[in-house]
Every structure is written in C-alpha cells, then in structure tokens.
C-alpha cells in the first residue's frame, strides 16, 4: 500500500514556520520549502500541521454494544477529531481480558483502516476485581497490549493492584487505574458538594478518587512499576500526582476535555447528558486541572469517549448511563479551555494530546513530531476558525455530546493516517482498510 508520493504544501508548524513536506510510503520523506510539484499535491493554505492526536482512553463498544458504537464508527469519529490512534478500553461484552478478544478488536481496527486501534487489556478477569486476567498472553498477542485497565471499575483490592503493577514490569506494561473507592461511592450520581446536596443526588466525593490515587502512588513506588491515573478530576488528585512526580515516582495522569471545561453546576436541570463517571466537579477543580495540564503534572488529555444509545440518556438521571462522547470535540474543547485562556500554546497542546500519550503507551508510529522518517500520521488544523457542535452531525453512532450547540475554537481540516488522507473538510474518506 501507500506507494507513490504526495506533497503537502504551505503547512504551518507550531513554531510558526511555513514548510512543504513530501510523503512517501506512509513516511515523511522530505521537508523543505517551495518543493517541486509532482504527483499528488495538497495545498494546506498555511493551516497548522501537527502529528495526529493519540487517545489513550476510548470506549469503542465493540464487541457487544454495537448499537452505540463500532470500531469502524469510532475510527471515523477519531479521524474527524484529528486522531490517528485510539486505545480501546476493555469493558466490552465479552470483556477484553483474553488474547482472543484483544486480537479481535485489533483486527477490527485494521479492517476499518482509518486509524490505529490499540486494545487495552483488562487487569482482572471479567473486570471483577478478583483475579488477574492473562496479562502476559495479551502482551504477547498480535495486539501487543502494554496498557491494562479495568476502567469503569477500580482495581480496589490493594493486594491485587500491587500484583498487577509488579507483574507487568516483565514486558514494560503499565496499569491505568480508574481511581474510585467503591465503598465511598455506593450509588453515587454526581460530585458530592453544594449542588448534590440541593439536588438530592447521592454524592461522589473527591476523597474517593484521592484515596485510591494516594494508595496506588505508594504501591507504584514500593514495587517500582509504572502507574497511570485515568481521568483525574480533583484538585486534591492533582496535588498528589505533583508530589509523587517531585519524589521521582513513575506516575502519569490524564484529564478529559470535559473535565477541563464543564462543572457540576450543569447538573441542575437533571439532564443526563451531563452524567459521567468520574463526575463533573467544581470550578476550583477545573482550575486545578488546567494548571496541572499546563505545568505537566497532568501528562496528557484523554477523551474517555463513551457512546451511549439515545434511550440510555433519554430517561431519569438516576437510571441513565454514565459517559459522554469526546473524540470529535476533544481538540476544540482543549483549545477553548487551554489556548483561548492563554494557559498553553499549541506546542504544549501537541505534546499533551499526541507526543506524550504515544510515549506513555509506546505507540512508536505516533506522536513523532513533524520530522523526516516519521510515520505520516498527521492532522491539519484551522486554528482561527470557530464551529458550532451539532450532535446530529457527528461521525459517531451516538449523540450524547455535552457540547451540543456550543461554539468551539479550531477546526480539524484534514487527517492523514500512514500517509493517506482519511479525513478532508468534514468528510471521512473510507479507504477500505487492510
């Protein structure tokens, strides 16, 4: 595949320079200026060219809940949002806790052919938190799983968490923890605070996240392994990670776009589109998360893209499903939260959304920067454009975006995967995959 060459003209890089770039066999073959025409040529009109975004936290729902999303529709949503790599969370039906299931998801990603789909393996069998899944078998499968998570559930048993952290050291794996003490969050519906007290909804206190983060940081230090904290939401959690990093402990953390922009005040009105786990927090937490992302305490942005069919949100708050769509709005939400507020520049954004996540998960063909020899996994952004989110015009199969009708900054114009254009100006270009 990928034979022939293509020239991308007038690309603006994050340092402001304008370059041309030649892609050959899926790799960046040459970078220059006023490059000679020949074969296919695309004028990027001085739009920003960045490495394709990398998501370490995506719910693709296949196998099992194809009514809400499939690997193919999630891939289409991904490239629409400028992503070239996804990480498929393990809470499918069946659970991705065996080599067979992770290989199936990996192959579905290749068949879709729009971006890379890297499966995340379950830490425990059936996500039940009782016994380790066959982590080695998943690591040695063709999916080459390195990141493991029971996301949606916390690995609450401290001994099991210790064992998992130790066990994955043999293949440089990493445990991604959904930090939620289950006993402190029985039937929890939203952030515990002033709003939950008024609405009469059972609270999900910040301490339930922070207690697990603190414990797991100490465990990771004790056994000398790698810990990744999923979707950090609390100011206290940011402090814990900051202190751990200062002590040299090998911990990384992610924040979702929605936790950078939305607060628990939105729950007033009981619209379940704002129901998510972990929950939307307070404005003070949002501020701490933004500061943490800007100063590097929080390493990356991850979407926690969680599609749900209409009927699972068109109901009472208490019975509604947790989760929000994220892939197609992530970049613009982060721009609105971090760049429009002057807390970060584009170089930092590219680090947090592409370079750093690829490094944490070991995705060597992604997040490589615009350099000769790198895989041509790229996104083109119109940084000055503003768009209005319309939930009825999403590539995802589901409609549960909390950003419906919001005006957001920056538009993804094009996405390239292994040198092929897979998204152009609102349209997913289906190349048929492998």
């Amino acid at each position, binding site marked *: 595949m990928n034979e022939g060459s293509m020239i991308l003209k007038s690309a603006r890089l994050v340092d402001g320079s304008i370059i041309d770039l030649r892609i050959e066999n899926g790799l960046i073959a040459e970078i220059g200026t006023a490059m000679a025409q020949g074969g296919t040529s695309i004028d990027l009109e001085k739009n920003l060219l960045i490495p394709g975004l990398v998501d370490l936290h995506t719910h693709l729902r296949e196998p099992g809940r194809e009514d809400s999303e499939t690997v193919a529709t999630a891939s289409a949503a991904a490239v629409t949002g400028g992503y070239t790599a996804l990480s498929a969370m393990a809470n499918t039906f069946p659970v991705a806790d065996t080599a067979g299931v992770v290989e199936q998801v990996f192959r579905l990603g290749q068949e879709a052919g729009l971006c890379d789909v890297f499966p995340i393996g379950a830490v425990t069998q059936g996500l039940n938190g009782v016994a380790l899944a066959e982590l080695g078998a998943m690591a040695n499968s063709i999916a080459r799983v390195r990141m493991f998570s029971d996301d949606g559930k916390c690995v609450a048993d401290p001994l099991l968490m210790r064992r998992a952290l130790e066990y994955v050291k043999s293949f440089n794996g990493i445990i991604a923890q959904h930090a939620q003490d289950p006993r402190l969050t029985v039937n929890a*519906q939203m952030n515990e*605070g002033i709003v*939950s*007290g008024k609405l009469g*909804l059972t609270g999900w206190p910040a301490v339930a996240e922070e207690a697990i983060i603190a414990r797991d940081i100490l465990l990771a230090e004790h056994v000398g392994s790698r810990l990744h904290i999923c979707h950090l939401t609390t100011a206290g959690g940011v402090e814990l990670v900051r202190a751990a990093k200062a002590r040299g402990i090998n911990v990384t953390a992610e924040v979702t776009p929605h936790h950078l922009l939305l607060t628990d005040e939105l729950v007033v009105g009981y619209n379940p589109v704002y129901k998510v786990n972990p929950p939307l927090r307070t404005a003070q937490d949002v501020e701490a998360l933004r500061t943490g992302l800007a100063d590097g305490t929080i390493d990356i942005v991850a979407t926690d893209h969680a599609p749900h069919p209409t009927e699972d949100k068109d109901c009472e*708050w208490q019975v509604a499903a947790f989760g929000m769509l994220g892939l197609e709005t992530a970049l613009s939400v982060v721009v609105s939260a971090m760049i429009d507020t002057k807390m970060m520049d584009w170089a930092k954004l590219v680090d947090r959304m592409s370079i750093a996540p690829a490094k944490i998960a070991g995705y060597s063909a992604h997040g490589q920067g615009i350099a000769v020899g790198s895989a041509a996994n790229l996104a083109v952004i119109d940084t000055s454009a503003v768009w209005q989110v319309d939930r009825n015009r999403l590539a995802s199969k589901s409609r549960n975006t909390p950003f419906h009708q919001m005006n957001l900054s920056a538009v993804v114009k094009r996405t390239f995967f292994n040198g092929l254009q897979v998204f152009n100006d609102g349209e997913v270009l289906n190349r048929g995959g492998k």
Partner: protein
Amino acid sequence: MDRHLLSINDLTRAEAFGILNTAHELSIISDGTLKKLPTLRGRTVVNLFFEDSTRTRISFESAAKRLSADVINFSAKGSSVSKGESLKDTAQTLQAMGADAVIIRHGASGAAQRLADSGWIQASVINAGDGTHEHPTQALLDAYTIRNSFPEYTDSFEGLRVAIVGDILHSRVARSNVLLLKKLGAQVTLLAPPTLLPVGVDSWGVGTSYQFDEVIPKVDVVMMLRVQSERMLDSFFPSEREYSRSFGLDSRRLDLLPPRSIVMHPGPMNRGLEISAESADSHKSVVLAQVANGVLIRMAVLYQLLGGQTLGDTSSVQPITQVANK
C-alpha cells in the same frame, strides 16, 4: 412559575402566599355544605405514582375530585412500568390519553423535572415527591398549617423559629421546607447527626445543630422527619435507641418546648423512634391538621395551575366563592 410545580424555587414569595390564601378560601367553602367545585370539570388529572404512597395519592385524588376533575390513578406497581417501560413511554402514553395534569411521585431525584422539560408531554407537572430532592406541596401544606397556628405570621414568617429534626440528607420534605420557610422569612435550624446532614448545608442559609436539648426551648415549630431504620444498616447512626435518645421527641423534650409551640410530622410516623406516642398525640401535635390541610393545598395548586391562572397570582384569579355559586 407558570405551568408546573416542580420545586419551591418555582415560586416567588408572593406566589407562595397566594397559594396559602387560595387554600384558605377553599377551607371556608369546605366548612360549609358545598364539598365539590365545578372548576376542573372535563379536565383529566393523572396520579402517576412510581413509589407506593397511599397517603399522598389519596390526598391529590381527593383534591382533584373536589374540583370535579376526572382522575386516573397510574400506579407503577403491576403496570407496564414494572415490565421495563420507560418514563418516556409512560409519559407519551398519558399524553396520548389527553392528560391535563400529571402528578408524579418517583424514586429518582429530578424525575418530575425530566418529565416537564423533556418534551414528552404537554400536561402540567406537579411534583409529589422526587427521590431525595423535593416535595413542594408538603412544604406548602406545612406552611399553611403553621400559619393557622400562628395568626400573627399570616403575612410574613419573619421572627418564626422552626427546627427540622432528623434525616435531612435523604429528606425531600426537608429540602422543600427549607426553601419555602426561608422564602417566607422564617428562621430555620436543622438538627441531625452529622452523618445525616448533606455536604454543603453551610450554604443553605440555615442554622445547624447536633444538640436537640439546646435548640428545643427556643423554637415555635418542631418538625420531626421520618427516619428509615435501614439507615442504621448503612452506619448513619449506631442504633435506633441511640438515635431516639439524641434526636427523638420524647415527653421530656416535649415539656421543654415553649408553651405555644407546635409539633409537626409529615407522616407516616415511627412512634417510639423519632417521636414518642405522647408527643405525637399531645395537644401540641398538628399532625392530623397537616393531613387535612394537604387536600386544601393540593386543591389550591390544581386550581391555579389548571384554572389557567398563574400560581399564587390571586389578583387575577376569579374569586372562588363566585365559582362556587355558579
């Protein structure tokens, strides 16, 4: 407040007093020979009850019937709801049947608001208790009952001291009462073990205390809340006896109350737990008056919502005595 009554927040102070005034007018008629008014003839009122509550249901049913409305009782138990039918489908079914008002009791906080906001149904929605959120007609009937006992507070509750005692955390009655009593001007103190006070209660604009004996000589109204004994299993308090000793209204505490004060309880009471039999049956107890007033308040709410009048805007409401004489 226009079409629905979902929360006390939907009402202004004037509108709230307007409902109390309408209920008072209705009480004058009810004391006479006329039991039934023709106001809502031809209108359909649905009691949509997802939780068992015979008392609240018959109170609303009685109110609607005294206004000559057709009443449909839709109980979730034994209905299609227990077969997995969603709130949305149920609402759309009621819409197709031509319901003018839906009175909803639901175990999920916010269910009444979802019903009103989601475009599933055009009817007026009255919240008859949603989870641990609100129960606005209970608060209105409580305020009405208080006013009957204290005529000096007819136009304002400024200076009135109310203690609400018990499981504030899980109580929709407490939430609606706090909002309404504050709106009317009363000074509210919440009494509960710290485990049963919500996080953020400091922002409610009320006092809190853990010491019943210190508060009780200084209140005009003591409102006892039902305590579910299953809270004990979740370690909100160690035992029923310990709860009762600290927060129960027994004879000794009854004697500590100022002479003119009243004892309230939304029912059903756990005699011997949050309230002793002596207190429940004492001359200070207005528990049965609360029940009777419930029908009047619900008539007033239905009258104003379905009579095409803004709730509480009594200036534009046709005098009830005229309606009755037609």
